[in-house]
């Protein structure tokens, strides 16, 4: 057991070096940071100009409050969640990181040296989780940073007493959790297709297009059938993110069917289902990977 663990941590070290030595990872984090920075600054600028003419002052006030800490801090997490930008970033990162092992023959290189297939894929998955945490951290630092400065300037201090460490950590983990099924889906696609293009393409198409399409298709039938959409990862993510950042999620939902809120599963059930999706996809990936012929 102990030796197995040592061996596993060594493989994780190899995969960590491979992933964290990659320009792609840092480029993704840079893009996310830049994008979020621009959005937050634009929001604050718009706010300070008083919003569009005719906006009721209460609405502007509510919006302003949503940018103050702690709400502003937690709103940063929404950018990294799986149902939104996060899902896209994960598709690109995991697709490239896993599928390129086949095309670069790095897979052949390590497996032919006696690395066990299960350990190999699990080590890769562990490192992917590290990268997801880094993604959430980036969103937090940028979004939390900008809103923090804003809060400080407007209120002359930060309401640190209102921020519970437990809630903060939980929200961090909840956000990362919403990314897991998308990462596992991409992992599965990469293993089965062995193609970077297919893995990234199909995973992105799913999270950007297919999932929303399913939601709308289901809505065409009876309300009961439409409620089936609650079980899709994107809706599960929404359910969790509503807990993380109620203000931001309500904004997102403007325009969606108004009963969306009531149609979501409870956050605890959603979290559990996200874990189930992830484990099932990871299990399927392992099952395929172990039986696969690694051809040259």
């Amino acid at each position, binding site marked *: 057991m102990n030796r197995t663990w040592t061996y596993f941590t060594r493989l994780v*070290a190899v995969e960590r070096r491979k992933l964290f*030595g990659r320009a792609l990872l840092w480029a993704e984090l840079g893009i996310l940071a830049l994008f979020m920075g621009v959005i937050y600054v634009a929001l604050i600028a718009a706010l300070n100009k008083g919003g569009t003419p005719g906006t009721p002052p209460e609405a502007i006030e509510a919006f302003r409050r949503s940018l103050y800490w702690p709400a502003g801090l937690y709103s940063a997490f929404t950018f990294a969640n799986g149902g939104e930008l996060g899902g896209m970033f994960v598709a690109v990162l995991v697709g490239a990181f896993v599928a390129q092992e086949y095309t*670069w*023959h*790095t897979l*052949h290189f390590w497996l*032919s040296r*006696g690395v066990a*297939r299960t350990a190999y894929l699990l080590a890769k998955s562990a490192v992917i989780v590290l990268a997801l945490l880094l993604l959430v951290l980036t969103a937090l630092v940028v979004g939390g940073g900008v809103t923090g400065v804003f809060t400080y300037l407007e209120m002359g201090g930060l309401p640190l007493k209102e921020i519970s460490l437990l809630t903060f950590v939980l929200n961090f983990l909840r956000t990362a959790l919403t990314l897991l099924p998308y990462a596992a889906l991409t992992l599965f696609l990469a293993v089965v297709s062995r193609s970077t293009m297919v893995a990234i393409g199909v995973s992105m198409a799913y999270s950007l297009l297919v999932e929303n399409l399913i939601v709308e298709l289901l809505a065409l039938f009876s309300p009961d059938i439409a409620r089936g959409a609650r079980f899709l990862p994107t809706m599960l993510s929404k359910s969790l993110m509503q807990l993380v950042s109620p203000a931001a999620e309500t904004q997102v939902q403007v325009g969606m069917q108004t009963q969306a809120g009531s149609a979501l599963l409870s956050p605890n059930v959603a979290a559990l289902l996200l874990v189930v999706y992830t484990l099932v996809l990871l299990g399927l990936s392992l099952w395929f990977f*172990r039986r696969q012929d690694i051809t040259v």
Partner: protein
Amino acid sequence: MEAILQTFSLTKRFGDVLAVDHVNLRVNEGELFGFLGPNGAGKTTTISMLVGLLYPTEGRVEILGDEVTPTHTAPLRRVGTLIPPVGFVPYLSGRENLRLLVHLYPEVDDRRIEEILEQVGLRDAAHRRVKTYSTGMKQRLGLAAALLHRPKLLILDEPTSGLDPIGMKEMRELLRRLADEGTTIFLSSHLLHEVEQICDRVAILHHGRILAEGTVQELLRGRRDLEDVFLSVIEGN
């Protein structure tokens, strides 16, 4: 003599193609064994089964006395493998790629890495990213990766492919020296003279089947050279 590598009725079918057809091999300790065959004979497919990348359709593989399958590859940690194109991480340097292997072979230290880089003539290029390397350089780094942990057994798939004539000669001399020092080597090649020059024993593979096997002297009996042996064996089949 002790068998270091053995296959029993090893067979691989890809759809209609019978790439490897009931191959029985036995490589003894200390031998430099040549696995000779033209392009498409089934050399790479056989080697891929030896190192647990492919599932045999039939038959099995034993290495260092232990069975190897794609889900049981532990014996391969004591083997050095070179299967081009060698899968280095392209955005890491040659040296960093070798350093990754230290996680797998804890007995390897920095001194050993520098020593092996020197030995394969890559000391000056070791800091460059592998993606800037030529095919020959990648091949030599591949050899370094195979030799790094001083394995008892080397499994090499056409190790001289992609090398220039001088590189080929150096590779042959190095392999012969390693064999003389006690390393068992299984190498595939489609180059008859290469095999004739350095190998102790040879198996000739054609359309996935072993057509002849023996020491170079045994095969050469009454023949001009291995080419002559090879052609007559193939024609007689």
